[in-house]
């Protein structure tokens, strides 16, 4: 199975499903559009959100832990530990980033399709 992310224009193959460890993430570099943090939940579900951490400005979210809060699957920033709801990208701890913008991660469409990723 290969994993594809829709970059706004088309589906891009980014890695093989086996490259993803359940409960962890990897960073993906999309030409022109920037960095995406790609995760595989413990049950196999895929999530893709911005890799840029709104609170530190550093491209680190792919290195965060996955978890849950109540019924919501969450991502925890490795930098200052803000928790995000992976289903809508919203930060559950703070509404606003330090620069005044809403603390919401862009979510990217992601899917696993049959086939092998090109080497």
């Amino acid at each position, binding site marked *: 199975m290969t994993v594809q992310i829709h970059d706004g224009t088309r589906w891009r193959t980014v890695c093989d499903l086996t*490259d993803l460890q359940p409960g962890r993430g990897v960073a993906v570099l999309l030409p022109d559009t920037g960095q995406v943090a790609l995760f595989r939940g413990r049950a196999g579900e895929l999530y893709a959100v911005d890799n840029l951490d709104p609170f530190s400005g550093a491209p680190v979210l792919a290195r965060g832990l996955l978890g*849950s809060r109540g019924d919501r699957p969450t991502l925890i920033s*490795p930098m200052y530990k803000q928790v995000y709801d992976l289903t809508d990208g919203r930060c559950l701890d703070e509404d606003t980033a330090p620069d005044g913008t809403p603390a919401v991660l862009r979510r990217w469409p992601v899917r696993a399709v049959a086939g092998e990723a090109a080497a």
Partner: protein
Amino acid sequence: MTTDHRSTRDPGAVRDLVLVGHGMVGQRFLEAWTEQPAARGWRVTVLAEEPRPAYDRVHLSSLFGGSTAEELALCPGGFLTEHGIDLRLADPAAAIDRSARLVRTASGTEVRYDVLVLATGSVPFVPPVPGTDAPGCHVYRTIEDADAIRAAAASARTGVVVGGGLLGLEAAGALRAGGLDTHVVEFAPRLMAVQVDDGGGTALRRRIEELGVTVHTGVGANGVLTGPDGGVRGLALSDGRELPAELVVFSAGVRARDQLARDCGLPVGPRGGVVVDAHCRTEDPAILAVGECAQAVDGRVYGLVAPGYQMAETAARTVAGLVGSSSARVGSEGAGSEGAGPDASGPAGEGFTGADTSTKLKLLGVDVASFGDPHGTADGALDVLYSDSRSGVYRKLVIGTDGALLGGVLVGDTEGYDTLRPLAVGGRPLTVAPEQLVLPAGFSSAGPVALPDDSVLCSCHNVTQGAVRAAVRDQGCDSVAAVRKCTRAGTGCGSCLKRLGTVVGEELEVAGGSAFKGLCEHFAHTRAELYEIARVTGVTSFTELRDRHGSGDGCEICKPTVASILASLGNGHILDGEQGALQDSNDHFLANLQRNGSYSVVPRVPGGEITPEGLIAIGEIARDHGLYTKITGGQRIDMFGATVDQLPAIWSRLVDAGFESGHAYGKALRTVKSCVGETWCRYGVQDSTALAIELELRYRGLRSPHKLKAAVSGCARECAEAQSKDFGIIATSAGWNLYVGGNGGMTPRHADLLVADVDRETLIRTIDRYLMFYIRTADRLERTSVWLERLEGGLDHLRAVVIDDSLGIAAELDELMNRHIGAYQDEWAATLADPERLRRFASFVNAPGTPDPAVTFVPERGQIRPARPGETGHTLNAPVLVAGARPEVLTP
């Protein structure tokens, strides 16, 4: 004109409920209504003006941060169908015929009602000045408004927001997010005049201006200036100035939308709003009103969503309760307005008599809170305040003559709000001196303030502290999870979970004598309990532990805690298998994450002793990879600026040069610092360096509840500062003195002398047991200093356990330490030897080897440092020649 007649099999049983307006409060009404058993047998029709179902207006500004309109939707997919609700979008109610009980919509349709609920909300207030209809003028209330502002912002450079209240600052945040040069014009002398006082307004203004928003207070808008094309070119101010701008947003308050009620003769308040009683009924018993379009029984029109929700719930109970108890009341001819009502509590139980308008929010990134009576309007009210212009913190408490807390304003630091608000709202006397409470976090030495049981603990579901206590006491709930299920507390936003844990713990302690100290929402066990479970049962994975003793998918608290426990018990390499998915930020890459996403690398330098060859090797590796170097406080060398893909290459050379992991990234033994001791020092009485090296090599890699620091001093002059360490040794002429539980850093603690004048063998055995006893019984992230303070029986008990074996566990502790020492391997050498472990060290899964273009550096003092926002830096993909990288340049 069409009339909406619906055929029913039993006209006597099926009745019509019509809701006018599908905003946040309208949707809440529908949810509350459909939960009522009485809702069966009613048909519900919703007449909505907007082209989309209800959405989260409060988070409108998130549309400027990448959220979509769909993400703001509040009405779940199948909700309307499931409950048979007929939602008619973009066809607002135009008139009400009370005698015929008909609503006529804008399209001419007529809808019959038995009960009508008005939830028409409010409209933005636009000051009556010239030019406000010019292209470029906007209001800020709907998704369409936000879309229009975003579209206009794309071609504008400067935007002005008229109104410096809560909504105005939200709108200013939206314009800033759109990259506009932003001005705020406020008629009052300060920002957020309703919520904060002058001091708070000043602090807020300073913080907001630091973010690049220009604030003009004490001036109004005289008119919108238009250019030759008719579009906005600026705003004329009441002080004669003109602000050039291409975009003007009016966000100067709202007005209740009560025209429908006015037109059909229902009474409205002096400042607008349909007059309702405590049960949200208007003068016409068949018509109710909720939210911003209603004037509540206390004479106020509430513009916040929380009171609106309360009114929606009240109205749903009113309709259901009246129907249930006496179907003749609501919706029947001849029933007059309720007046005082037949019973004090009203037919639907608790009514809506007013709401607490305390607020805590983050505006443009600045924390602001206001609660109770923030302006001190009561007779004899006194202020206690703290203000620090440097940090932009302003905190004021209003105290009554009897010492009760009446209200307060917090700007820049809202710590304590959750405790102070219920105290102020309840008019409770303070148990702590107010000057302690007004100090910002970290300065106050006050203990926790006791909250009354009627204070609301979970505001999402309106659960009081008393209800939580009752769930434990009377309903048999024995964990946070059980209480959450039973009361719904903590199942909304989750912000009250910490306090929920405390209250449940207190109550369990009262009930059964055992304190609840559950780790997090996923484990009701303490770290020490989980350690014992893992040690005794031999559980080796998070999943297994979670399945047997916890719930959910874990979090930033339990995952690293379990990872640490498994590592303490020796479960192989920390990056292998499922353990790899548990490691926290630093352990994940066996390096220390720095602020720009790069990492630092610290090889172990036992006892701080290093050969010239070692120094040269570190120097060469740092130079070749362009890293910044600094001597640490633990007598070693830290190399900064590595990206994840560089780490294996750096470590490969370090390992070749004879270095191993220094575990600077782990909650583990860091360094054993030392002085040179008797070998060189003319005062030294023992070889402190040799002992420090021996201890560091003995305990290296030992994972523990928190980091461990140690030191050995060669004489009583204490140059290694051993008494500020988790364990510290001071040489005496007769042997060694062992000190434990010391700490430097934020909360210094002088270590306690555990044993004196012991030989090397006794010393090491005592440290072994002390460390293993600590690892076994401490809480997560609890340093030895705090653990020792908390340990029942204190130092004497510790001495009894590790020297006299009072618990009979000494052999176990010895065995665990021996196992650790026997199983030790250098994590980095082991990582380099295994391609599977190395896989994660790629910046990008789809572009391995590509350095992260977002991690950049600039030169400073002959080395690199992270580029700041706005600076153009370079990446470290190849050795970079930093200006002045050669030592001679460092000499002025």
